[in-house]
């Protein structure tokens, strides 16, 4: 089935501007998950009650990953497209911009390959993990899970590999749908259903922006094919104007495109003000949280901006807005994450926060830093989620960090603990980890970009908070005295705040944690290794491997000075080259955060539930921790500002509909009925009376005729 013979192809022609054609087998990369969908659906119909769907999924995705690797090794430079078929074609005239064409086609460049490598790679690993994690649901639920899982990878591949904005939109909606289906996987739980709806609706708000952006791009540039759009003279002219500072030469339509596109990106990537859906999305099974809501789907917004980076550069305000939204989201989410007790939710807020970093990176013009952070974050955040998932799996859904402690010493939990530790070091930005390098790129760039120093300081402060809340989880749950209480048994049930479960200090009486099996351990170990190795990517090539990939794409920044996110000759921070200085500064900040976490949450802690130092500090802060624990009441604010008024409005509309519209319709029905009710009394069933009325009618008719004839005579 797989013809891998033409591996030795060259994907691009000699000139980087020319569009080469990619070998047709790159279309198998999205096709493999689709085959997985079909196979899992068939198994669902046949009622397979085994782990078969999981292994089919792993096989399909592994093939997809291998093909992506071949695509990477075979790729040289520039665009390479593979056209499937003409998808849409409308024409309403012969002039320029009077026909609309969208091919079902794939376009490959560095950015695409970068994304596809970690999407298919992580999807394969997480599918393997899920084969064990979802084992309690073997049967229809298991099949359903893997159908949606495959469909998600297919949609993501369309989103990333598509050769035009409409393909991106198709994938965008597809991943949104799969996200909805998988968050609502435990559809008997009202919280899960509510979370699924919330995610879908909030994403739709963003999607409106994306749709308008795509529409406007077509209207203004006359095409949505990437290869034509980014090479168009119009856009090149605008970019030239922008570089020269002639912002007024650029028509407002062109500057408005990025503003619409970013709304879509904010929705999908959970940025202010649309971030509220992501923490609730943790109601889904943990593999889903790891793959969709941490590693891949939520980075679609970053991908969108990176992909349409030239469009963003023609607006004076677009990238600064992106930078500020990202920064504020990073800070806000980190402060909320500090006060949560549910470890999965802490990870969710940290995802929101880290996505904020990526947006800030894009905003301060280091698409390389953003891309690198996406990559490292994908690995270590998937690792963290999967480790949390293993805990949840083993302790019957327990996720409250006040009810778990010292898992390191519980038999069978070594690999999980080590995985968690590696993930935490990365997230905290501990020196020489992958997360450290990628975060530093963004931080340093923020400091050296004129006018963005404040963003740099906020992000640096947030990095300290990140280190604190990350190690808060680690010090509470994985080290310290051994103590654990079971959750309430459901996989999907993520918190058991009531104390009825597990008698106090009754460490494990009657409850035996269920240590993870080979699949979970294998995946955690692999991801831990990947997270460590990812740091090495920074040292490959000129400015790191990711820089090479990004520069071979539309996220490439035109060289003004040194483009690689590298050191700007003129800029300096504390008299040092900013990137070098940032290594030391952020190391110190990260370690200080970890020390605080140690002092508050490990030092002198005797039980799972009480950390004297942290509790004392919390009491000293007054009501602020409680506000943070309640997520700064943002959900309540939205309830008050939007949901409440909308509910009132919809009630008003309901009554308008009920009384006015339904009233009119019902009146139309009632009128003949009422009139008929009166008239039918005349129908007495007696033949003679009918005859009499006929005769009377005839007589009347004749009378009228006679009168008329008389008159005219």
């Amino acid at each position, binding site marked *: 089935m797989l013809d891998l013979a033409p591996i030795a192809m060259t994907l691009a022609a000699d000139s980087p501007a020319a569009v080469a054609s990619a070998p047709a087998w790159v279309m198998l990369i999205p096709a493999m998950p689709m085959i997985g969908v079909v196979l899992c659906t068939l198994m669902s119909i046949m009622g397979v009650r085994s782990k078969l769907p999981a292994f089919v999924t792993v096989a399909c995705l592994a093939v997809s990953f291998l093909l992506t690797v071949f695509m990477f090794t075979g790729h040289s430079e520039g665009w390479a497209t593979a056209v499937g078929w003409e998808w849409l074609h409308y024409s309403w005239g012969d002039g320029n911009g009077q026909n609309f064409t969208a091919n079902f086609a794939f376009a490959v460049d560095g950015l695409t390959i970068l994304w596809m490598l970690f999407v298919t790679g992580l999807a394969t690993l997480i599918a393997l993990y899920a084969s064990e994690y979802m084992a309690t649901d073997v049967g229809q639920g298991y099949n359903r899970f893997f159908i949606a899982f495959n469909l998600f990878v297919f949609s993501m591949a369309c989103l990333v590999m598509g050769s035009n904005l409409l393909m991106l939109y198709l994938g965008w909606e597809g991943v949104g749908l799969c996200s909805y289906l998988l968050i609502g996987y435990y559809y008997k739980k009202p919280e899960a259903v509510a979370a699924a709806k919330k995610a879908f609706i909030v994403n739709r708000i963003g999607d409106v922006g994306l749709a308008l952006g795509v529409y406007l791009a077509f209207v203004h540039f006359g095409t949505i094919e990437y290869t034509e759009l980014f090479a168009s003279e119009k856009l090149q002219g605008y970019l030239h104007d922008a570089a020269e500072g002639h912002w007024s030469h650029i028509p407002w339509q062109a500057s408005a495109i990025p503003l619409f596109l970013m709304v879509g990106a904010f929705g999908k990537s959970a940025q202010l003000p649309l971030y509220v859906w992501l923490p609730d999305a943790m109601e889904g099974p943990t593999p889903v949280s790891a793959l969709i809501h941490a590693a891949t789907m939520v980075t679609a917004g970053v991908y969108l901006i990176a992909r349409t980076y030239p469009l963003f550069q023609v607006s004076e305000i677009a990238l600064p807005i992106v930078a500020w939204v990202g920064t504020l989201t990073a800070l806000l989410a980190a402060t909320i994450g500090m006060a949560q007790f549910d470890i999965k939710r802490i990870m969710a807020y940290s995802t929101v926060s880290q996505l904020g970093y990526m947006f800030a990176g894009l905003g301060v013009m280091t698409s390389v830093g953003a891309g690198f952070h996406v990559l490292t974050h994908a690995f270590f955040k998937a690792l963290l989620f999967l480790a949390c998932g293993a805990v949840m799996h083993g302790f019957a859904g327990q996720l409250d960090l006040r009810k778990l402690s010292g898992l390191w010493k519980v038999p069978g939990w070594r690999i999980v603990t080590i995985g968690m530790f590696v993930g935490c070091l990365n997230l905290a930005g501990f020196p020489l980890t992958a997360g450290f390098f990628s975060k530093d790129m963004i931080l340093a760039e923020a400091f050296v970009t004129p006018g963005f120093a404040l963003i740099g300081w906020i992000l640096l402060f947030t990095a300290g908070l990140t280190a604190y809340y990350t190690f808060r989880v680690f010090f509470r749950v994985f080290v310290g005295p051994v103590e654990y209480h079971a959750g309430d048994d459901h996989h999907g049930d993520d918190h058991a705040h009531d104390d009825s479960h597990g008698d106090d200090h009754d460490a494990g009486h009657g409850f035996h944690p269920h240590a993870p099996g080979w699949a979970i351990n294998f995946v955690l170990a692999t991801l831990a290794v990947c997270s460590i190795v990812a740091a090495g990517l920074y040292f490959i090539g000129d400015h790191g491997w990711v820089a090479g990939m990004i520069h071979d794409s539309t996220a490439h920044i035109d060289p003004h000075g040194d483009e690689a996110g590298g050191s700007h000759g003129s800029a300096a921070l504390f008299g040092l080259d900013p990137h070098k200085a940032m290594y030391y500064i952020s190391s110190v900040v990260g370690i200080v955060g970890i020390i605080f976490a140690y002092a508050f949450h490990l030092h002198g802690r005797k039980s799972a539930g009480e950390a004297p130092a942290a509790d004392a500090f919390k009491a000293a802060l007054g009501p602020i921790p409680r506000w943070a624990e309640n997520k700064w009441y943002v959900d309540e604010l939205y309830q008050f500002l939007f949901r409440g008024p909308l509910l009132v409005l919809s009630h008003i509309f309901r009554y308008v509909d009920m009384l006015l519209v339904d009233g009119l319709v019902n009146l139309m029905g009632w009128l003949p009925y009422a009139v008929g009710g009166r008239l039918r009394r005349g129908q007495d069933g*007696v033949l*003679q009376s009918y005859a009499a009325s006929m005769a009377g009618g005839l007589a009347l008719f004749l009378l009228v005729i006679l009168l008329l004839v008389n008159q005219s005579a």
Partner: protein
Amino acid sequence: MLEVLAQGAFAEPMASITLAHYLVLSGAMFVLGLVGFVTRRNLIIMFLCTEMMFQASGLALVAFARYSMNLDGQTFVIFVLTVAAAEAAMGLALVVLLFRKQESLSAEVWNQLKG
């Protein structure tokens, strides 16, 4: 009014009998049939009354045909008579059936079809 209808002449020796005579006779027969139909309850009598109304209209048709020296009306009457014969066969059969159902010839017992 009647003067208008009396215009035109029949051939001798019936020159004194005008179209109006026939029409008056026809109208009288029709009204008699109608009154009979409305006032009587016996199905057979009612049926005969409809026959009388038929013949009244036939008479008018023949008179008009003769008046305008045109055979169309007479032709039409032949058809009417044919239909009336068929209708009489069916009508009387129906009356027999109705009688068997209710053991009565009164039209009043058949009043189920009321609103």
